[in-house]
């Protein structure tokens, strides 16, 4: 199969004299096509990691078991899968196997006999999953972790350690059922493993969510893609973030390749996928009239140890004394700067609300309402309405709601990093 990766940079390359910061948005799109780079993978491996600690008892474990059975049935025959359940320790309910009819039946039987009891040590679950994923190192490797509770505090160190080992070996989406889990905890796992975090407010909703996750996972077919960035000597990357479809800060995730060149992980890509990245690079300023290559960003994917460059784009800087040119801010840079500010305002607003700092919470969430309104981020605007009464969206005039369902606050917190894309043209 062949996939066409396209990289496009949007920026205002003109800087006033002495300026050092270069901002650019890079849009990467993948299209299936006859031309382009031949890509391939040696199968797909999907891992299910399910919490079976004591707190999962009752409705939750029933719903989770039903959902796992549905997922197993939905797996395409050419995929591989495994199931790990976890409580105080992990249990490989079903090891890596092809998704044949026969194996699916065996797995379903194993799921049915699962019981919920014990504590919560997520590091052990991930360590077991890691062992399974290592069996198919060339496959597209993705997992789903479902939990309803908090990880035991004693596990913090072990979790950090095992996350380091898992990084780059598999990707993992995390889902929390109910409202007893901690957003920051799952976000730490998901962001390290290039996955998403979300809330499933009630057990009945597990199935439809699982279906969506599996569908997305099965659409991925180019694995282990890195965003490679060359910068000039003396330059410093102030940040590198994925900004669409959601915000993922990759700044501190770089791995040096050689001097002046680093790789940021982007995980697996599917057909017809499109993402935006925001780079902010500090360079040594040039003289008026100088043009500089402030960065060369490329996408590199690795299959069976061979690296292939699939797309490349240039980030430029030109120093000018023409203020009409240097004062212009690129529309996309402005848009995503606003989206990052929106996410941050929500985080700070919710934190202030949790501390009972009503004044700050009102100010921050009001600002978020204003930013969501301005940028047309309707999904986030809708979530904000569950937490504040909006008096006037354009000015961000809001009142905090007295009664807020915990699940609504958690949904806002987990989904605040979802961004909206800028319209292609203002016309």
């Amino acid at each position, binding site marked *: 199969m062949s996939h066409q990766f396209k990289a496009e940079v949007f920026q205002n390359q*003109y800087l006033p004299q002495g300026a050092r910061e270069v901002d650019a948005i890079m849009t990467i799109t993948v299209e299936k096509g006859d031309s382009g780079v031949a890509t391939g993978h040696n199968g797909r491996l999907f891992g299910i990691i399910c919490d079976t600690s004591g707190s999962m008892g009752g409705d939750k474990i029933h719903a989770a078991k039903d959902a796992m059975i549905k997922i197993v049935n939905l797996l395409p025959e050419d995929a591989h899968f495994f199931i790990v359940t976890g409580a105080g320790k992990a249990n490989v309910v079903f090891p890596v196997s092809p998704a044949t009819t026969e194996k699916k039946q065996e797995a379903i039987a194993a799921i049915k006999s699962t019981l919920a009891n014990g504590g919560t040590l997520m590091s052990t679950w991930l360590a077991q999953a890691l062992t399974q994923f290592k069996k198919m190192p060339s496959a597209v490797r993705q997992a789903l972790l479902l939990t309803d509770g908090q990880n035991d505090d004693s596990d913090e160190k072990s979790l950090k350690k095992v996350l380091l080992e898992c990084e780059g070996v598999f990707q993992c989406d995390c889902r929390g059922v109910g409202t007893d889990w901690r957003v920051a905890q799952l976000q730490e796992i998901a962001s390290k493993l290039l996955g998403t975090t979300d809330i499933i407010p009630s057990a009945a909703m597990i199935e439809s969510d699982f279906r969506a996750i599996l569908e997305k996972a099965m659409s991925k077919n180019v694995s282990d893609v890195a965003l490679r960035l060359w*910068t*000039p*000597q*003396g*330059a410093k990357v102030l940040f590198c973030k994925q900004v669409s479809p959601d915000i993922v800060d990759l700044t501190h995730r770089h791995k040096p390749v050689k001097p*002046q060149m680093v790789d940021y992980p982007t995980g697996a890509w599917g057909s017809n996928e499109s993402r935006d990245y925001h780079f902010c690079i500090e*360079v*040594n300023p*040039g003289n*008026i*009239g*100088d*043009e*500089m*290559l*402030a960065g060369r960003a490329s996408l590199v994917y690795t299959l069976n140890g061979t690296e292939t460059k699939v797309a490349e784009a*240039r980030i430029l800087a*030109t120093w*000018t*004394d*023409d203020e*009409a040119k240097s004062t*212009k801010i690129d*529309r996309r840079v402005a848009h995503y700067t606003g989206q990052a500010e929106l996410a941050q305002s929500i985080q700070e607003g919710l934190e202030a609300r949790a501390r009972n700092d009503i004044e700050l919470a009102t100010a921050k969430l009001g600002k978020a309402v204003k930013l969501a309104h301005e940028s047309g981020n309707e999904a986030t605007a809708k979530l904000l309405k569950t937490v504040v009464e909006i008096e006037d969206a354009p000015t961000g005039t809001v009142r905090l709601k007295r009664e807020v369902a915990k699940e609504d606050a958690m949904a806002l917190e987990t989904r605040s990093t979802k961004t909206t894309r800028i319209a292609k*043209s*203002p*016309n």
Partner: protein
Amino acid sequence: MQCICGASILADDKFCEECGTPLTASKPPTAIDKCEKCGAGIDSEGYCCQCGFRQEPPVHDWLEVIINSQLAGVSDRGLKHSRNEDFLALQQLNDSQPNILVVCDGVSSSEKPDLAAKTAAETTCLALANAWEIGENSASAIKSAFATALANVCNISYRNSGDLEPPSTTIVAAIVQEGIATIGWLGDSRAYWISAHSHQQLTQDDSWLTEVVAAGKISEAEARLSPKAHAITRWLGADAVEDAVPSIVKFTIPDSGYLILCSDGLWNYTLDAAHLANLVQRSPDRDAIGISRTLVEFARNCGGHDNITVAVLCL
């Protein structure tokens, strides 16, 4: 030592500080293979592999066109702009004549102004040559050539980012045969006649400045200081199709001298036609390319704030 203007000069002066005349034969800048800033190698795209600074001037940073000793021109990026958005095209149809000169200055506030200028200059030059061969008269040849150029400029694909206009350019074109120069233009690129006995500007800019000066509202010197001094009222571009009606003048060449077409990157630094005539008379080289280079160097020496393009026909 003394400059021809009478000012005293030093042996290693490159320019006369008084009148700006170049004192050394000027040469186009040459490509380099090592970074000027850090000495590292240059990649295939012209950027330094180490510090990232661009080295090799882009293709049209300095463009010289030499048809013969009578007909030549230079287009230069200047010192302040990051690229050259001017272009020129020259042609002599056969040994005896006619001569065709076209100078275009891409509008900076439009998308792909460099491509607009190049497209307009090349299309116009070719269309004029074709029109001439089928016997069209010079004024209608210019009109139809501009129409063809406009169509091609409108066909330039560009990314509509919303805050820039579609590709646009000024244009001045001249056909010269049997002692008559027919000149057409849109915008503020100019044509001048310079000889030992007379000198004059042959075109009237389509610009805010010309309009207010013509209306007698303020003097040219005052108008030049206005931020609107460079606002043009006509140009070649998709957003001005209705207004793209060129002004055309016919000029009978009185004696031997020089027909000069130029962009505002040059005339901005001249006080008037007499000043330009002065610069031409002082040029160390008398052929068309020599005079073109002299005038470009003069503008660079004055600050080179804009792209500079000069085309010269010696008659």
